[in-house]
């Protein structure tokens, strides 16, 4: 069985690369990019199974990036990374195509669970 392909998008380079490495240790094919343009290019060239997308990046609205990702690759699931979330914002994000969200700093086990659930949805 092929590895789950995860794309991490976060302007905090250290955060993105470290989390990617931790996911690689857990047998995910994880890559990290630091800006939305790079993310969209990567989704276009090699659509990931799941995108972990930081909601707040400089000079951009994460929700707009989410919409563009879903336009390019509707099958890719997107999990938003945010400093704070609520039931209301979760519903708003789901309405524009987000699969789920995780609050930073998130526990690796909870991220892995969300990735597994995203893959279950993809394989249905």
């Amino acid at each position, binding site marked *: 069985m092929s590895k789950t392909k995860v794309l991490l998008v976060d302007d*905090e380079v250290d955060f993105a690369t470290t989390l990617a*490495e931790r996911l690689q240790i857990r047998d995910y094919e994880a890559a990290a990019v630091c800006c939305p343009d790079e993310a969209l290019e990567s989704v276009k060239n090699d659509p990931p199974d799941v995108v972990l997308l930081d909601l*707040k990046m400089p000079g951009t609205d994460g929700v707009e990036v989410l919409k563009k990702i879903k336009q390019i690759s509707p099958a890719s699931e997107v999990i938003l990374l945010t400093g704070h979330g609520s039931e209301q914002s979760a519903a708003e994000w789901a309405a524009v195509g987000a699969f789920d969200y995780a609050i930073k700093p998130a526990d690796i086990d909870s991220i892995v669970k969300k990735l597994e659930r995203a893959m279950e949805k993809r394989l249905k």
Partner: protein
Amino acid sequence: MNSRDLQLAFIGRILSCYTHEVNNYLAIIKETGGLMKDIVRIKKGKIADEKQFFGLIDGVEEQIGRATAITDYLNRFAHRMEKGVTTVSINDLIDELLALMGRLAYRKRLTFRKELGSGLPEAVLDPNLFHYLLFCILDSRMCDLDRNGVVCVGSSFSDGCYRIKVCTEGARIAAPGASESEQSAGRHEAASALDATVSETGGESVITIPVKQSN
């Protein structure tokens, strides 16, 4: 919004800048610590790549250093609120505010440049009002500025007055900030309480504060 609401909103924005900043540092520290644990687990306690391990520890120390620095700025900002009029260094106040507003600038892909004069005498004023006034001016200038712009803040002292100049470099955005008129009212009130004048010429704002003797 009345002036008290505007000042509370200002404090709220400064606090959210701080919490976002520190939350990012904590997220990096958490992931780095987690990765170190993962490495030890995989190697069953034997650290094969010491260089990588020490690199991770250095990374943690760097993030702690950044979090400590911004916490120090917030701490000073908070303690200044306990006092009213006091003797302060104008340059320290500018330094503090720019450090705390760093996240706002970063989010808009803007940078701050400081051109602080040396040898300015200490000022006798209410630092909270000064911070609020400067914040209003910076915020409105930042609203007008497109990505990759530079906000320059300078300070000088001459003819018995402190002068704080704010100017910008880079492309302007057509739409001004939504809260411009409200901010303008708050700005005038703070300037009046500080006995300061604010002049706006072209792309430049100058706060002029006459020197006051401490009682």
